[in-house]
């Protein structure tokens, strides 16, 4: 009897752990980017926005309190890949290029002293570095091109395993076989010049990817011993090049000094940083980050507090509260990604393009957006390149592609008439599906995704489909169902995407190009493998120049809409909140997250 009780008590603890695991799907968004100049038509409801905020005139000094529900995943600039991690990484590190807070597509030289030089054959990129930039203590020496080379090379070290190295740097000569040692395609002719030689004409993409933190300099003689650990723990001993650094001890140790995982982090001024060498004003003296707590409580603490900000997207109830009572403390950032419905292009009823169009036409996208908070934080999505990314306007802007070919896209509240037209074209003269296949729908639990999935299910039933409707945790939905083609899921209604940086290729290529269909971790959810679109993408990968790339990818976006490869419904606008004593500056390129290097106290 006693033993059974013991087991029962342990079972309570273990079961709780499992339940929490199930609830623990990360709601974090992947690293973001977005564009400039193309968000002008997006309404931010009159609230402050990264597109309109003032970047000058901040007051110097003070400590900003930051409340953060979840911990950082990685603070090592060679591993960090999430918008939350970027907040501290970009305050402490200087990649070759970076975006000012109010732009996502116009990169400014950061560690670089000028724009990248791209050779005429599009296979060589040369970057000159600023002189006189120093690493923070305990390294204290000047940054050279060799440090940038090492930073990129360590990305291929399995102990570091940078999550986007292969996506953007594989065209570098020698990168495919790199394991952390020297890469033949990187040369440093002098202390302040670095040259990248590519095996494919993809210089523009490589140059654009230099805004990612992998290019932030790392001193080899100091970092190598940490990189030899499995996995690397350089993040716990990192040195900074940016205006701030993690508080550390004399040996450089950050862990237990300036970073207590799951508890707190403290950024202090980097004594070796000079304002004259940087575009960031770095008004604050210190950033004190407290980790943990619940989103709903944190939001209220921030709205009723003074020198305090919330690091993560606030709870919907707090956004509403801020919009009503604390208007000046709410920031709305356009270009915070998109949500769409993955429909299986190669298996089941939706192999039929006209059925996909009928579904698109019938769907009430306005209702779906309402579930996400309505006009304040969403816009009805009409194509796949989202606001602020170059190519958005070229693909039709807010309205999207129009004309007879796109009539299924012209009714945000759904049109039974247009849907019936496409049902008939698909071979169902009654306007209802009469086939015998049952659609499998796998959505994410928890609102608003759950409400959206219900709307999708009901829409499909109204079109005559039999459905097998399943809701699971977000992480499970991706890992077990929607990212695994062999599961043959017909509809994934809770898919979302954010670009890595302000280039349309990072929105469309991996998600709609047939060559990126993987057996696991597949993010071409519809398994779209259209030869014409694939060829257009391959050609567009090599296009240089922002305008030319915007035109090329905008055209591809239109073609993706034309075959209804997926069904879009929401362009996100991210809400962020601050205390009454903060003049917060959000990053348009990082879903509006606060930028500590530009934020000041009133």
């Amino acid at each position, binding site marked *: 009897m006693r033993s059974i009780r013991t087991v029962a008590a342990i079972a309570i603890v*273990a079961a709780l752990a499992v339940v929490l695991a199930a609830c623990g799907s990360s709601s974090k968004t992947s690293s973001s980017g977005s564009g400039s100049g193309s968000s002008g038509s997006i309404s931010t409801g009159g609230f402050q926005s990264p597109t309109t905020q003032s970047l000058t005139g901040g007051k110097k000094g003070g400590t900003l309190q930051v409340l953060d529900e979840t911990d950082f995943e990685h603070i090592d600039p060679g*591993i960090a890949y999430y918008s939350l991690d970027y907040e501290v990484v970009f305050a402490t590190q200087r990649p070759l290029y970076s975006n000012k807070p109010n732009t996502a597509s116009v990169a400014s030289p950061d560690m670089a002293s000028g724009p990248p030089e791209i050779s005429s054959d599009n296979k060589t990129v040369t970057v000159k570095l600023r002189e006189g930039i120093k690493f923070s203590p305990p390294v204290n020496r000047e940054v050279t091109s060799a440090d940038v080379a090492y930073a990129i090379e360590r990305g291929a070290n399995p102990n570091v395993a940078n999550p986007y190295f292969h996506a953007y740097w594989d065209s570098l000569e020698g990168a495919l076989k790199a394991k952390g040692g020297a890469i033949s395609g990187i040369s440093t002719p002098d202390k302040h010049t670095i040259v990248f030689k590519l095996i494919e004409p993809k210089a523009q993409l490589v140059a654009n990817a230099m805004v990612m933190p992998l290019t932030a300099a790392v001193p080899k003689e100091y970092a190598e011993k940490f990189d030899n650990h499995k996995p690397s723990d350089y993040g716990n001993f990192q040195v900074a090049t940016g205006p701030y650094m993690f508080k550390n001890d004399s040996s450089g140790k950050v862990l237990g000094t300036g970073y207590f995982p799951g508890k707190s982090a403290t950024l202090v001024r980097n004594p070796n940083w000079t304002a004259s060498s940087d575009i960031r004003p770095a008004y604050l003296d210190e950033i004190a980050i407290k980790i943990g707590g*619940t989103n709903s409580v944190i939001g209220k603490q921030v709205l009723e507090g003074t020198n305090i900000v919330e690091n993560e997207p606030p709870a919907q109830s707090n956004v509403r509260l801020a919009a009503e009572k604390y208007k000046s403390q709410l920031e709305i950032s356009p270009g915070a990604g998109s949500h769409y419905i993955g429909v299986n292009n190669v298996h089941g009823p939706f192999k039929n393009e006209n059925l996909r169009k009928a579904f698109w036409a019938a769907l009430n996208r306005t209702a779906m957006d309402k579930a996400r908070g309505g006009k304040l934080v969403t816009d009805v999505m009409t194509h796949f390149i989202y606001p602020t990314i170059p190519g958005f306007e070229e693909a039709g802007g807010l309205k999207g592609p129009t004309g007879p070919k796109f009539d299924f896209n012209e009714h945000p509240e759904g049109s039974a008439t247009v849907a019936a037209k496409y049902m008939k074209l698909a071979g169902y003269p009654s306007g209802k599906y009469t086939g015998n296949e049952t659609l499998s729908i796998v959505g994410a639990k928890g609102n608003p995704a759950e409400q959206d999935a219900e709307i999708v299910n009901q829409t499909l039933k109204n079109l005559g489909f039999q459905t097998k409707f399943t809701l699971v945790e977000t992480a499970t939905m991706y890992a077990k169902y929607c990212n695994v083609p062999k599961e043959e899921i017909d509809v994934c209604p809770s898919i979302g995407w954010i670009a890595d940086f302000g280039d349309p290729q990072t929105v469309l290529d991996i998600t709609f190009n047939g060559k990126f269909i993987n057996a696991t971790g597949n993010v071409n959810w519809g398994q779209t493998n259209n030869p014409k679109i694939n060829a257009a993408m391959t050609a567009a990968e090599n296009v240089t120049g922002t305008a030319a790339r915007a035109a090329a990818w905008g055209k591809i976006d239109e073609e993706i809409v034309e075959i209804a490869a997926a069904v879009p419904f929401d362009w996100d606008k991210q809400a962020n909140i601050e205390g009454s004593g903060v003049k917060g500056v959000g990053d348009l390129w990082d879903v509006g997250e606060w930028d500590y290097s530009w934020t000041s106290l009133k």
Partner: protein
Amino acid sequence: MTGYVIRRVVWGIALLIIVCALTFLLFRIIPTGNPAVLRAGRDPQPQLIKEIERVLGLDKSLPTQFWDYIKGVFLHFNFGYSYYSQQSVLSLIRERLPATLSLTLGAAVVWMVAGLSIGIISALKRRTFWDRASMGTALVLISAPEFWLGLLALLLFSNDIGKLHLFPGAGSYVGLTADPLKWFTSLIMPWCVLAAGSAAVFARLMRGSMIETMDEDYIRTARAKGLPERRVIRQGVRSSINPIVTLLALEVGVLLGGAVLIEYVFNIPGVGLLAYHSIVQSDFEVIQGTVLLASMFIIIANIAADIGYAYLDPRVRYS
């Protein structure tokens, strides 16, 4: 008696290994549980996943991984390292244990004092307004989820977002040695919320047990003999409390489970919050460490209760 104690300890160790194995398996077979895939970004190439698995030691067979882990835990007291911060699990737990102990021990005191006192008074003042009010409140507290109760307490009584600015709010916890007064005030609300459910259960149990005892013949005899009412009640309490005390060990598990939620709501950097974050991040080694620690506490509490019970009632040793 010695043989009995050895049997209980051996069974406790076996149970720990079973818990270890179950946790190990559970977090490796659930679909989201591969940290290598989570770490590999949005286009996780199989080669990259393999490399990360090798670095994290996840490429070895499950039995080998499990054997390595068990060896580390039982021979070297090494619980592994966090996949994310690379900090040793033991030091992560050691850092957070004082907060969890502060929370659970304090809550246990509140729960026992409040639960038992209310139960006794209710039994003695049967069918009065006081009895009905306290039992009604107990029913509400038993039914209310701790998470909800915690949020309610914060919105009503915290000094930052509450309606009545009475107690320090979420995120205000400091260590006992850093500032004893602040430590105490920051834990008042968490203690009460964590203790509420258990106190209510024990109040009802104590009331029932006390009513039954007070109707016994020997209590009537004691009264008939003219014993002062205080001594009669003391006798009644002593008899009624025995069956309740046997449930205390089981309650340790309930408290530890509740501590996870309370630490989350009140942002107390304890082992529960560590467990929560590690589960969200699929940080296996930390999950295993925290579950193992919680199990260890429960097993030790149960062994202590078993031994105490056997000491009091020798028949138990032979059953």
